[in-house]
């Protein structure tokens, strides 16, 4: 999955981003472990793709006054959240404005985060799925961005948007969550970390992909450009720059794969890595789909999954997968920026032209240092997960 994203992003990170965000939407829905909703959404995604009208997912979280705040469990309570879900007969009424929503205008299934009580967001967290065409839901403007022009950053508007109970994937006040062994806050924190642990390695892959695109562009250029009678690629200092770029790509890939392994063993995918499950999936017969999968719609499946993923999850597992995801995210995207700069360094005035490729890398890659929480917030998260944890005198996000 991650190398696939890298591959696409090495040519166009905007396109890579569209694909990535779709899976990000899925990765956001998964930690609800709401088997019924997952089953319905996933089946529709597959069916729609076969029809040639793919129903993409997106993750609807950022608000005008709450960016970092709503992505960082430590800050949730201090933030000014603005999207409120009010309980009404048969469901919830959602009101609010969301911005910077990647894939917003392209998606069909919107995985929306909201809160029941703006004064107590951490304990009244809500996740619901809103499809296109829902009453009260509408698209707003698209942001004018520096790069990633193939994708969108959309404004989504919710005005008395009614969401039936069937589409509420996470309701923290629901007993399966409220009564979870480690408490609501711990569980919400884990849900968020399940998402970011898998998504941030993906951003790392995008950063690495852009790093690779920049490298390949610069190498092509250096092999053709003549300076002082010889080829640029035969200048020793140019070879050193190209070598650094090559190294950066390989280092990035090594790091995001390390995060992916960690996540496989200790994060969202850990059930799949258990030997019985793993082998079962390998040999899974066709009748599974018709016979077993309807059972997912029963509340039981959700309860079992939540038991496994919430109650049995440990701090150490969460810290390792979330921490390494942050390492991958900020390291690979910094490497991407470095490579984009090196490509422009090497290409001088020629690199400034859009038709030469490198300037696109430069514009695109900057976003990767910003989204999925800024690199600084990722550093703070890594600090919380793996550096300053277990130190009683240490305060987080002070």
């Amino acid at each position, binding site marked *: 999955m991650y190398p696939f994203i890298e591959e696409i992003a090495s040519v166009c990170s905007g396109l890579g981003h569209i694909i990535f965000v779709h899976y990000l939407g899925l990765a956001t829905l998964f930690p609800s472990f709401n088997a019924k909703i997952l089953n319905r959404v996933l089946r529709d995604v597959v069916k729609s793709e076969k029809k040639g009208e793919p129903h993409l997912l997106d993750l609807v979280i950022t608000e005008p006054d709450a960016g970092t705040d709503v992505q960082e469990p430590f800050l949730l309570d201090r933030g000014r959240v603005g999207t409120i879900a009010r309980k009404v007969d048969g469901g919830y009424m959602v009101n609010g404005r969301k911005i910077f929503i990647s894939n917003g205008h392209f998606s069909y299934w919107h995985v929306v985060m909201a809160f029941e009580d703006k004064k107590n967001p951490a304990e009244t967290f809500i996740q619901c799925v809103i499809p296109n065409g829902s009453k009260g839901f509408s698209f707003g403007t698209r942001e*004018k961005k520096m790069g990633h022009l193939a994708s969108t950053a959309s404004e989504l508007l919710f005005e008395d948007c009614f969401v039936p109970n069937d589409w509420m994937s996470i309701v923290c006040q629901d007993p399966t969550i409220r009564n979870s062994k480690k408490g609501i806050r711990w569980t919400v924190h884990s849900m968020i970390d399940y998402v970011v642990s898998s998504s941030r390695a993906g951003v790392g892959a995008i950063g690495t992909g852009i790093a690779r695109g920049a490298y390949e562009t610069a190498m092509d250029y250096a092999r053709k450009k003549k300076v002082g009678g010889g080829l640029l690629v035969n200048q020793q200092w140019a070879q050193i720059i190209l070598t650094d770029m090559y190294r950066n790509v390989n280092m990035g890939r090594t790091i995001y794969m390390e995060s992916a392994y960690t996540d496989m063993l200790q994060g969202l995918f850990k059930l799949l890595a258990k030997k019985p499950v793993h082998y079962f999936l390998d040999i899974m017969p066709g009748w599974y789909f018709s016979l077993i999968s309807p059972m997912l719609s029963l509340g039981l499946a959700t309860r079992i999954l939540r038991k496994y993923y919430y109650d049995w999850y440990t701090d150490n597992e969460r810290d390792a997968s979330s921490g390494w995801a942050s390492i991958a995210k900020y390291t690979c995207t910094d490497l991407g920026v470095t490579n984009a700069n090196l490509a422009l360094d090497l290409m*001088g005035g020629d690199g400034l032209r859009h038709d030469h490729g490198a300037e696109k890398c430069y*514009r695109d890659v900057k976003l990767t240092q*910003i989204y999925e929480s800024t690199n600084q917030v990722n550093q703070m998260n890594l600090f919380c997960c793996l550096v300053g944890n277990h130190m009683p005198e240490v305060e987080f996000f002070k």
Partner: protein
Amino acid sequence: MNAINTDSLACERQAFADLAKDFSAKKLVENREEHDRYPFGELFTEAIKDAGIIGFYGINLPVDYGGVGLNAAMVAVIVEKLSEVEAGMAGIVFTNAAALEIIREGAAAKKSDDIYKSTDRFGTAPLAFQSFHAPNEIDMPAAGPGGALSGRIDYLTLGGIADFAVVPARSDGEKAFSYYLLDLKNTNVSISKPVVSLGLHSCPAVDVTFEGVPALLIGTQGDGENCYRAMRDRMSLCAAAMSLGLIQGSLKEALEYTADRYQGGRQIIDWGQVRMMIAGMAVKALAAGSCFSSASCDMDGGCIGWEKTALAAAIHLGELANQATTDGVQLLGGNGYMKDYGQEQRMRDARQAQSLLGNALFRKMELAGQIIEESR
């Protein structure tokens, strides 16, 4: 701001700085985003004209030919102030001034002012010039007998909006090259659509093809390299000025935004890491200001080695601006990436400004060559 306050030069400098500031506020702030979208938005043709009226294209043009008769250091003052607000206009002033430096150098070498008499457009409308490539980085057009040029010039800055251009060309079989002045409205000139570039969108460039276009030789035959070097020595200061202005503009917007934005229940300017990043930008802004100011002083005073100091200032400030404007975007988070704020434009412009006067790495290697030569 660090300039010497005690002489009349300083007064003039202050006057031009104020003028540039005033001009920016009145002509550039509004619709900045729209102009930056060129060629997918409108170009600020009015502002380009107005800059000529107030004399921004004649600073380093002799007084006898309608100019102000000052040097590139004064151009740098204007470039710096414009760049704080909109570096594209600064790029236009820069490009025209670079072309005029070539002409001045050529006239001096030839000991003749004739070239200035060839048109009365000097100083009122900007000249086109290849601001982002050194002559040794490009394939040049060929100069036929009588100075008719054939061939191609890529990325000719302002080529799409200027009447005249200063371009290098090489006569058949010669190693040395010369600069020529030519009329871009000539029918044998084919001009491409504006080249889409990383930054400085409102200072656009085009690719140009010549088929036997009559052109006026600037200076003496084969003296192009000397003209280029003399121009580059002086214009390096202006390149440094653009980087400096961009750092200052970026720091300013970062300070405003971070004081305005709340996360975690307080202004983000009070977060420790945000403050440390601002500290880094501030150190760069102040150090860049000092570096620029001293290089300017050295050039005005004709200190020994001022050329190397100016070149180093251009390279160093280019790097500082690259880092500072990138941090400037980061400090605005998602908003930094959006065109509603000025930061993403500054980041692109700063990166583009690093290539003013040619690939910075080539310039660095040349500097090393000079220093090694002197040390032997």
